[in-house]
């Protein structure tokens, strides 16, 4: 893919969200001077970003803060009015008083986020050890977490199957941008998960391509799986979701994932998420199974927030 990384027209969204590096911001702002359209888009997206600010709960500062501020302004001179062409908020001209440390722009790798570590398909022994203190029963752990060799070879086999399907049926990869979510009926529950204060997520790569993002909230008692770029299940097969180890080590069916239309599919799991449960996905015969009949494509423990 030969994407132009330096096209300023692509930067308006990032600008509104303050996601740009200094260089990129300079690039965009230079482009704004010659493009009223770009300026209009930038302004409208900045106003949009403010809507995100309005949704945040205000916090009243302590009275001492105001007192010290009032004392401070009484002895602080104001800037001389200058050119009206200065960009709004005067943010682009850093103040002398502003602490302006160089932004860390992905130079050194950030510490791996907790929720994104170890969520590997076909979990290895080391990963399993990390999760072994969960409430999942030993039985479930054995089945889902402690077969690294078997899981690996099975994953490889699945990858081959997926490849074959991809060739035969055509692939849905890479069509996720700018399209609507695969399904919307689940969005109410999904939103309540996202809005929960104990919202958590983890993303795992799926053998054969694509990724599965699992989101959950124990407060809401629900979880959902979002498949991105994951091929449809092979002919005559379906993806089935499971709650593992929630009730005395049981593995409970939690619904089928129909198809991965547009490469993105969201499925809210049936039933209730209980503390200590893991969320898994397998390939099953069409119509689903009562118990898993294949090695999980993913198994994600739902830690408590």
């Amino acid at each position, binding site marked *: 893919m030969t994407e132009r990384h330096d096209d300023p027209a692509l930067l308006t969204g990032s600008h509104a969200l303050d996601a740009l590096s200094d260089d990129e911001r300079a690039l965009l702002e230079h482009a704004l001077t010659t493009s009223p359209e770009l300026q209009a888009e930038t302004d409208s997206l900045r106003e949009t970003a403010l809507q995100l600010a309005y949704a945040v709960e205000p916090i009243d500062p302590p009275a001492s803060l105001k007192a010290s501020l009032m004392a401070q302004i009484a002895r602080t001179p104001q800037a001389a009015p200058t050119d009206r062409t200065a960009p709004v908020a005067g943010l682009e001209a850093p*103040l002398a008083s502003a602490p302006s440390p160089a*932004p860390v722009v992905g130079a050194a790798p*950030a510490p791996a986020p*907790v929720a994104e570590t170890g969520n590997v398909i076909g979990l290895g022994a080391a990963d399993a050890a990390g999760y072994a203190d969960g409430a999942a029963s030993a039985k479930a752990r054995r089945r889902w977490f402690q077969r690294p060799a078997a899981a690996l070879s099975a994953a490889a086999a699945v990858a081959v199957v997926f490849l074959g399907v991809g060739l035969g049926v055509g692939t849905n990869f890479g069509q996720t941008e700018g399209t609507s979510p695969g399904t919307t009926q689940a969005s109410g529950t999904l939103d309540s998960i996202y809005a929960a204060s104990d919202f958590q997520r983890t993303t795992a790569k799926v053998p054969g391509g694509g990724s599965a993002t699992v989101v959950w909230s124990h407060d809401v008692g629900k979880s959902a799986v979002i498949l991105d770029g994951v091929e449809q299940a092979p002919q005559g097969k379906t993806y089935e979701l499971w709650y593992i180890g929630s009730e005395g080590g049981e593995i409970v069916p939690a619904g089928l994932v129909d198809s991965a239309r547009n490469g993105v599919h969201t499925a809210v799991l049936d039933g209730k998420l209980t503390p200590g449960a893991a969320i898994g996905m397998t390939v099953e015969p069409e119509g689903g199974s009562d118990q898993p009949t294949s090695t999980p494509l993913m198994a994600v423990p739902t*830690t408590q927030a």
Partner: protein
Amino acid sequence: MLALVEHDTEAWSSTEPTPVSPDDLLARVASGDQAAFSDLYDALSGRVLGLVTRLLKDRAQSEEVTQEVFLEVWQQATRFDRSRGTAASWVLTMAHRRAVDRVRASQASHDRDTKIGIRDLESGFDQVSESVEIRIEHERVSRALAKLTEFQRQAVQLAYYGGYSHSEMAERLGVPIGTVKTRLRDGMIRLRDEMGVTS
């Protein structure tokens, strides 16, 4: 109170509604009016501290940044260009920018990717507010965010509430920077259209 809410102007949550608009107050601040500054602070400081705390988590640091923001408001009020936006947006934009700078600066020494941090920033905003205005705003934003794709929503929330640069996001999400840019732009345009923002 509800009748006072006008989303296309400003809907402030303050329990004591300020009789004068922030724009008028800021105009007076520009001429050195300290009483107007006091009123402006009363009207906006809760918003500013709320937003900054959302990004920084740490209350002491957030109060510090809030103080910096308002000091800058005082100093730069003379340069505020009313034709480019409202006083409230000017102040909140400044607050967000400073919070982002601070979050990135402290990232090297602090592990901001703690479990708590991720949970908080990706849930985006608090659930239930006592304020009718905030609840309404919250619902509007929730509804609009729901219209985004999962990946657009994730990118927008990571950027705005988490303070991530798009290169950081690209690294974290394992996608090209161009993809992050596209998600942010498409997501914001979608959000704008859903929320009927005009500018």
